């Protein structure tokens, strides 16, 4: 019995957005080469630009949010500043790119996360997605795991869960909007 080709490549043709009957294929954004633009289905005025750093299993949930239609990928340019109106009718937060850090961060990997953060143009906001990124989570006692990505980059919103469900990701994105527009 062959395994479904889920995680071997980020090439789009490998992951059709419409799955065959009885078979759910998850489009992989985990290792996407750059930020992509998305629309939050429940709140169409919220369009966000996300650079997804999928470092472990939590990344599957980001794929689930897209596969289940909670997060709709917007075709077209995702150049910084053009999209990502965090809230309609306000200029606050426009162009913000969200660095979505989902997964376990080891001390060996933390510098790479910091580099990704530093290379991301302003305006930007880091979202810690899941228990591992929040605090180390189930690996809180492991000698090789960073106890929270907020030790490395400034985190704007912490999304709880192990893993957080796709609904929690949407709640987290709404929280980012609230933080940026209200703040």
């Amino acid at each position, binding site marked *: 019995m062959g395994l479904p080709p889920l995680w071997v490549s980020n090439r789009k043709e490998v992951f059709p957005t419409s799955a065959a009957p009885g078979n759910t294929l998850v489009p992989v954004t985990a290792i996407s080469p750059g930020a992509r633009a998305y629309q939050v289905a429940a709140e169409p005025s919220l369009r966000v630009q996300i650079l997804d750093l999928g470092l472990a299993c939590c990344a599957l949930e980001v794929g689930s949010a897209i596969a289940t239609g909670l997060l709709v990928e917007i075709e077209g340019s995702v150049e910084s500043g053009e999209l990502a109106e965090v809230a309609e009718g306000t200029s606050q937060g426009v162009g913000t790119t969200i660095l979505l850090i989902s997964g376990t961060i*080891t*001390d*060996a990997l933390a510098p790479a996360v910091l580099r990704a953060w530093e290379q991301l143009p302003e305006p930007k906001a880091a979202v810690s997605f899941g228990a591992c990124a929040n605090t180390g989570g189930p690996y*809180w*006692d*492991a*000698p*090789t795991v960073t*106890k929270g990505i907020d030790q490395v980059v400034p985190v704007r919103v912490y999304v709880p869960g192990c893993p957080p469900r796709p609904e929690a990701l949407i709640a987290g994105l709404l929280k980012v909007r609230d933080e940026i527009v209200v703040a």
Partner: protein
Amino acid sequence: MRGIDPVFWVDEFSRLQAQGYLFFDFLTAYEREGEIEVIARVVNPKSKESELLVTKVDADHNSVTSISGVYPGAVWHERETAEMFGVNFIGLGDKRPLLRRSMLARPPMLKSSVLATRMLKPWPGQPSNRKQQPIGVVEDWLQK
């Protein structure tokens, strides 16, 4: 699972590879009764058969011969096993650690290694009227 004399460890993998066991699955180690054993699995993709082989690590030098000359894919696994269990793979070229920043502390996967975070964080389940150790915490660890 088949136990292999350490002397024939590499030869056995060479023999299996010649028989069509071309896919290297994994190699790791575990500790049993104070002794470390190295375990590896190879698969014959045509017949779908697999072989799970185990050998004892030489207790004096904590060493075993590397099979990376037979299965180049084993390099990553042997590096990890060396890093986490302190096993010395004779003939392994690349010995850079994957995750650990410093190799000064004891290999973390040994049962005798203590998890410093568990030692330093107060256990929220500590009863007020008696002493109780949580799972994974060794008493008097500082003296060890």
